[in-house]
């Protein structure tokens, strides 16, 4: 099940569809159970931020490789920075503000880059070692 392939879709208000496509890609790339759910939730949070704080448009690109799955969320508005990520924390007394914290908590590696297309948030989840 070491399928190296890429899936891309535009960001729209149809969050459910983004979740389904990311799940489809990640499952075929060998992610299972918690790790599959972790990635889907992390991407969901990132796309929610594009809808909530960003320009509402951009792309989601999922890639698989030997190690696992990488998903890049590009926000065309380009305002997400490393500082937002660094500031992310969870505050149970507040009723908002933990999407970025959730992303940091669930992924094995994350990164922010500024591109001509917008700000790019890269999430990586490792595949567990193959059984047998």
């Amino acid at each position, binding site marked *: 099940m070491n399928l190296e392939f890429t899936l891309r879709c535009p960001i729209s208000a149809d969050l459910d569809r983004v*979740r389904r496509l990311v799940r489809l890609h990640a499952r075929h790339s060998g992610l299972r159970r918690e790790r599959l759910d972790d990635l889907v939730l992390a991407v969901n949070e990132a796309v929610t931020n594009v809808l909530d704080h960003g320009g509402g448009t951009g792309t989601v690109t999922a890639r698989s490789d030997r190690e696992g799955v990488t998903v890049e969320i590009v926000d065309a508005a380009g305002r997400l920075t490393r500082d937002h990520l660094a500031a992310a924390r969870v505050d149970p007394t507040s009723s908002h503000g933990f*999407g970025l914290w959730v992303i940091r908590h669930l992924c094995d590696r994350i990164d922010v880059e500024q591109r001509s297309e917008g700000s790019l948030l890269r999430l990586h989840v490792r595949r567990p070692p193959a059984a047998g």
Partner: protein
Amino acid sequence: MGEASVDAIDDGTLRLTLRGEIDFTNAGEIHKTIREAIADRRPQVVLVDLAGVTFMDSTGISVLVDTMRAAAEVQAEFRVENPIPRLLDQLRTTGLAKAFGLT
């Protein structure tokens, strides 16, 4: 996708049943339904049943936190029940499980 239904029970308990996938696209509507129900009925206990919730993101969890606050405003007890294991994990990780009466 996701929805909320409201049942008032005789003994002053307001039972809120959430279902489906709760995310940014429907959390606002659900939030409004819940806020109105609490303001209207002024219950002594607010109980949120999550048994039918298959997915909830941080926006959905924010609705639960705000419901807890709305319950406190009318001096009602607040409890969350029956999250699926994945969601219980999420509530534990964010440090909310205890405040929600989950162990």
